[in-house]
């Protein structure tokens, strides 16, 4: 399916209607017969997310199938990495399963039990996950042979835009970054809205998330084949210049964008101050909820992120997997849970639950599911399409430091404290030292 075919909601919906539908009530999870682990109680360490709360509400189904009880132990996101590291160092068996975000993986591989054998025994087809999500659960910086868990939560980026404004001005969702600039200028000329809400502030690397799409779209990359910084290559410098020019040259971003984080940018659209925002798909719920937004679902539409002419749309990704603690005494029971939770039917039941507005999916079949795409107006088709060419999050143990360095550099540039080329060269020099350490 080509990107152009999907670029409007009507075309996408037409495409969605031809997709396969699946009854979500039928769990085909490969569980061991006879409830061999009945009476076992498992502890799962998890961060708070509406999707995980939805899973928790379905635990009675799992308990009925296996006799295993699972207790979700929520931990604040801000303390999660520290806690996981402490669990690793202490070789603790407090938690049988733990949730991990992709970028933390490389420093935590030794915390997890490889589950290749169990996956083979249960005949779980891991190709059901997009590569960008599955690599987060693999060791060897995403290229190893061991699978350390099941991808459970994953995000792609979409371009959210004000459908009512676009319709009124006879505009189509932008296919390219240049189109986005042109449309932004038209919108700014004819309404009191800013064109596109960007977030260049320093908050946990958020100002790099759209930058990566410029980088990849221009043919650049973060590291070269030898694992050395490549983000100051001519292509990368051009990409970075394009990225910051949205604010500095074209002036199509709202006031304050230099210090905006992702939430500020989304809020700018939700408050009717900006016409577009490129951001994670889970933001849809907040953009269309009357408690959090001035907009209704009819006013918000989405499309794949723009790209450069002739290039496929890209997306940065964020993935979480659930793995089994290497020190757990209940690994077999934990694998039963992962097999159940990882079954597409569980994810599908959450997606189609009308009492929720949960869009997050990592299973390709669900992203291509007709009912899902009808409900969410082809959002998941766009997501699946973006994931096809997604490179995924950088996975190397020094990435958090390199990320801090790069986000500070980008922020310096948009704040007028530095120029792109010398700033990126300096960042590359410092990144080399970090990578050597």
């Amino acid at each position: 399916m080509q990107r152009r075919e999907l670029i409007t909601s009507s075309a996408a919906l037409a495409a969605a209607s031809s997709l396969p539908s699946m009854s979500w009530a039928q769990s085909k999870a490969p569980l061991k017969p006879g409830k061999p682990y009945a009476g076992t109680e498992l502890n799962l360490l998890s961060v708070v997310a509406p999707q995980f709360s939805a899973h928790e509400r379905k635990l009675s189904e799992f308990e009925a199938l296996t006799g295993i009880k699972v207790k979700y132990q929520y931990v604040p996101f801000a303390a999660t990495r520290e806690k996981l590291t402490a669990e690793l160092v202490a070789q603790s068996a407090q938690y049988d399963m733990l949730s991990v975000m992709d970028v933390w993986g490389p420093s935590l591989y030794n915390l997890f039990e490889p589950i290749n054998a169990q996956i083979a025994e249960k005949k779980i087809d891991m190709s059901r996950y997009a590569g960008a999500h599955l690599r987060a659960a693999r060791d060897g910086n995403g290229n190893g042979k061991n699978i350390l868990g099941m991808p459970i939560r994953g995000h792609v980026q979409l371009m959210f835009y004000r459908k009512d404004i676009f319709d009124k001005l006879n505009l189509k969702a932008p296919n390219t970054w240049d189109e986005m600039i042109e449309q932004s200028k038209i919108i700014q000329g004819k309404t009191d809205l800013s064109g596109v809400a960007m977030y260049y502030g320093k908050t946990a690397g958020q100002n790099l998330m759209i930058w990566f799409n410029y980088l990849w779209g221009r043919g650049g990359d973060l590291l070269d084949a030898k694992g050395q910084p490549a983000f100051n290559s001519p292509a990368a410098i051009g990409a970075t210049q394009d990225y910051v020019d949205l604010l500095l040259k074209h002036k199509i971003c709202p006031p304050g964008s230099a210090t905006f984080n992702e939430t500020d940018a989304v809020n700018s659209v939700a408050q009717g101050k900006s016409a577009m925002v490129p951001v994670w798909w889970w933001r849809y719920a907040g953009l269309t909820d009357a408690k959090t937004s001035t907009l209704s679902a009819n006013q918000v539409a989405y499309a794949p992120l723009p790209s450069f002419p002739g290039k496929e749309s890209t997306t940065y990704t964020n993935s979480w997997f659930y793995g089994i603690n290497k020190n757990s005494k209940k690994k077999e029971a934990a694998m039963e849970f992962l097999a159940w939770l990882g079954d597409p039917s569980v994810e599908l039941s959450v997606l189609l639950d009308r009492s929720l507005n949960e869009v997050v999916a990592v299973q390709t079949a669900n992203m291509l599911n007709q009912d899902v795409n009808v409900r969410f107006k082809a959002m998941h088709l766009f997501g699946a399409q973006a994931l096809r060419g997604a490179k995924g999050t950088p996975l190397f143990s020094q990435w958090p430091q390199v990320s801090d360095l790069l986000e500070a550099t980008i922020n310096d540039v948009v704040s007028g404290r530095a120029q792109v080329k010398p700033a990126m060269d300096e960042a590359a020099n410092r990144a080399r030292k970090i990578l050597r350490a």
Partner: protein
Amino acid sequence: MRKQSKGWTALIYGGLALWLLVASLPIVWTAIISLRQYVDAFSIPIKWIAPITFDNYTTLWIDKAFYKNFLNTVIVTVGTVSISLTVGCLAGYALSRYRGSLGFWLLIIALVFRSLPHSTLLPSFYVMFDAVGVRNEYFTLILVLVAINQPFTIWMLRSFFVNIPNELDEAALVDGCSRFQAFRKVIIPVMWPGVVTTGLFSFLLAYNDFLLSSSLVNADKMTMPAAIANAINAESEAFLMQGVAGAVSITIPLIILVIIFQKQIVSGLTQGAVKG
């Protein structure tokens, strides 16, 4: 003393009023937006007047059972303050009267321990508590908070005890008191403001602790700061407003406490500042 001009006085009071406004604005604004929906709380431009709702509080306290976190906080805080003050008073008194060099080194060791970042201690706590099977227990969290807090309470209480003349002890002993009776019936009543001040600081440490509560115990035993962080960091704007309501909820007991003990706090701080 030269009389200040009315203009100068007005300027000083005006400046103080402005400073009070600036300093209290974040707290007041947080309290105001906790009674709004997210869409009004973070509106652009700012809405000075918006519909009031108690949804954030009812969702937090009832649906999300925040009262359990409140009770956890009460248990942990009361336990920590009680043990810290009991041990701190005894140790501070002993060290204030002891003249040997060992006392000095004990205080230095306590200071070094206090200055360690808490996160560096976490892995060793995990190993120890896992080995004896007491992780995820109230007592464990209280024990760690006491251990971290104790050097501070000993130092602070010692500085108060040092300012009480030895003659008081001696008079009590001459009157027939034992050493402990002298301590309990004569010394402690004299330095009550110091105990209250130290107790308040101990209370704040336990009450506001995030790292240890979020790391050592599971969600069912977490204290309020960790539970609030859970809400604020969740990928949902609606959860954020519950976090805001939680932030206000957690502040109210502190305000009440300061109002009740303001006389002792000021007295204790002044005593420490002038004579310590």
